[in-house]
């Protein structure tokens, strides 16, 4: 604590400390960054967390194995399906439960749709953070159709609770396949439009190229995962390394880039959207018939022990760690959230840049604050 307090002092002549957040338009939530400035140049950044801490991990200790999943929709609210899936997979691992193929396929399709809408939202927000307002509306036009599919099948648009231990809660809506295919063909036509308005723009390239460099070694040592790490050349796609659900049934590429800057992170996500589209296309016509949920007991009790499952969310690796003492609710739960580790590399990346660079870096890391604080 002593060190922290000493850090708060302004040590040099002309040093300038501003607090970005907890109420600031480009921190996308209640993140608080304390920024030491020398004119426009960022000398030091210190993230202060905890403004939206809801103690989801502690709360889960008093919930049953069916119910604790629902709280995770509120962690990374842009990837509710994938959070739920991670928890469901952990419980299934504990129960050694075989999930029906149909459920696996539905899970994978929904997870990829989630990734697609999350990346679309990220794309719009990146434009907004860099000062271009129009991309936001373009992104939301396509995202809306995905949200409608979610609404139809899962009953919710944002914080879905569709994955349950053993499979999915309900069977898919009769329109699901038809509408998903419609949306995919629409989105595929729009990628060119996205590139036209953002990717090739000179101002955009100047704002992102060479900005916020993160080396491969630093990415590994800070535990950075997801597109942020893949932009630094770290191969870390859990879908490829430890396939879960139906990811071993599909062909897709892990996108890697050695740039390490904001532009590389941007390009990685743009490519990943295309990969998601291709994954869904491979699965959507081949959903097997059969049960959508395996039979489970009314009260789920995990055997005594420790269980861990990793999944790939749009932001990186989400780990769920459950310690069970054999009771009907977990003894201890720990989430390894991607946002927290990725944020820890922000001070390194932002150092020496301008205020505008800090905003660009924050938006290309794609922070979701409730995911960091939980």
């Amino acid at each position: 604590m002593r060190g922290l307090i000493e850090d708060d002092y302004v040590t040099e002549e002309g040093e300038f400390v501003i607090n970005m957040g907890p109420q600031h338009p480009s921190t996308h939530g209640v993140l608080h960054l304390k920024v030491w400035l020398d004119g426009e140049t960022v000398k030091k950044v210190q993230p202060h967390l905890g403004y939206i801490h809801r103690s989801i991990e502690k709360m889960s200790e008093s919930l049953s194995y069916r119910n604790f999943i629902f709280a995770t929709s509120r962690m990374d609210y842009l990837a509710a399906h994938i959070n739920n899936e991670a928890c469901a997979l952990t419980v299934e691992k504990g129960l050694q439960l075989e999930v029906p193929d149909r459920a696996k396929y539905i899970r994978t399709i929904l997870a990829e749709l989630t990734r697609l809408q999350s990346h679309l939202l990220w794309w719009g927000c990146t434009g907004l953070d860099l000062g271009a307002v129009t991309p936001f509306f373009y992104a939301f036009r396509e995202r809306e159709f995905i949200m409608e599919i979610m609404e139809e099948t899962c009953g919710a648009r944002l914080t879905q609770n569709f994955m349950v231990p053993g499979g999915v809660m309900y069977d898919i809506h009769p329109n699901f396949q038809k509408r998903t295919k419609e949306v995919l063909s629409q989105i595929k036509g729009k990628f060119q439009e996205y590139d036209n308005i953002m990717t090739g723009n000179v101002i955009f390239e100047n704002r992102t190229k060479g900005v916020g460099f993160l080396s491969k070694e630093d990415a590994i040592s800070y535990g950075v995962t997801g597109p942020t790490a893949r932009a630094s050349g770290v191969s870390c796609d859990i879908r490829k390394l430890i396939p879960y659900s139906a990811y071993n049934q599909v062909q897709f590429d892990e996108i890697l880039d050695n740039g390490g800057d904001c532009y590389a992170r941007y390009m990685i996500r743009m490519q990943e959207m295309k990969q998601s589209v291709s994954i869904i296309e491979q699965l959507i016509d081949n959903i097997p018939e059969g049960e959508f949920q395996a039979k489970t007991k009314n009260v789920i009790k995990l055997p005594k022990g420790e269980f861990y499952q990793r999944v790939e969310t749009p932001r990186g690796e989400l780990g769920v760690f459950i310690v069970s003492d054999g009771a009907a609710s977990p003894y201890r739960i720990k989430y390894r959230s991607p946002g927290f580790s990725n944020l820890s590399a922000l001070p390194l990346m932002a150092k020496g840049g301008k205020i505008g660079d800090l905003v660009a870096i924050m938006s290309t890391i794609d922070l979701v604050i409730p995911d960091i604080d939980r």
Partner: protein
Amino acid sequence: MKILLTYSFSSFATYVHNLLADLIINPMLLHVTEMVITGVSLIAFLVILCFFLGYMERRVAAFMEIRLGPNRVGPKGSLQIVADTVKLLLKEGLTPDSADKFLFNLAPVIMVIGSMMVIAPIAFAKDFQLYDINIGVLYVSAVSSLGVIGILMAGWSSNNKYSLLGAMRSGAQIVSYELSVGLSLISIVVLSGSLSLGDIVRSQENGWWIIKGHIPVMISFVIFVIASTAEINRAPFDLAEADQELTGGFHTEYAGMKFAMFLLSEYINLFVVSAIAATLFLGGWMPFHIGGLDGFNHIMDFIPSSIWFFSKTFLIIFIIMWFRWTFPRLRVDQLLTLEWKYLLPISMVNVIIITVMAIMGWHL
């Protein structure tokens, strides 16, 4: 119909002048009365103009962003901006406790006065000009840089770190881009041989400068539009405001009518800059003429000169709005690089080329 086509604002002005001259015998009093009438009608005109520009900006933005824009208050949402103004008028004009109260309240006024003063030498129609000052171009470039004082004042007196950063950015930005604007203005002054805006318009009788001046004038037109977009702090050069970085920059602490005055001055500046560009490069109120083709020129003369002026001005306003809704914002060092490494050297060379062109008479 004939009356409508040949009607000009100057005849209306003469009519009002004669009417007043009959009523008021004292020439001094007559002069003062006329000035007051002009001032009041100018302010009314500018406020209505800003309403229109605000509405236009929203509609243009909505058009670019595939949405509808204002469409509830009044026909096609045209009264939305009036409703917003009423809201801003009724809001509390908050002054922060630790602010320098005098400067804080003075800053928006200076901004508005600075931008309104630039209107004086602009010719709105044939023979319709508030004051054809013989150093019009110099006056415009001198007065238009008053705005930065208002911005610096607002940023400093707010006693807010974001505001201060925004104000400092704006200071560096306007001082730099003033150079390119000045050099573009000079290129037309060299060609037309006059500083008076009235003379400059008349010098384009057989072709606008952008056509007569060949490629060098086109270059200086492009530089003028870019640099003046930066000078009036509009996106992609809106670093002084930079919502996503500085949460509004120099006007972070302002609310209510004081905030509205910043908006007012922004829109007046937008209009002024476009009007100057239209006057210098696109011939102002001068119809589209081609030297030698008298028949064609007569047909063009049938369109009233005020329509020519306003359509050119609004074309440039639309282009500047188009910038705002498509481009991301530049970073502060890139902004200065653009000016000092690209625009300034290009415009310097360009002025030399145009001077040679003027001496050799290639533009005639």
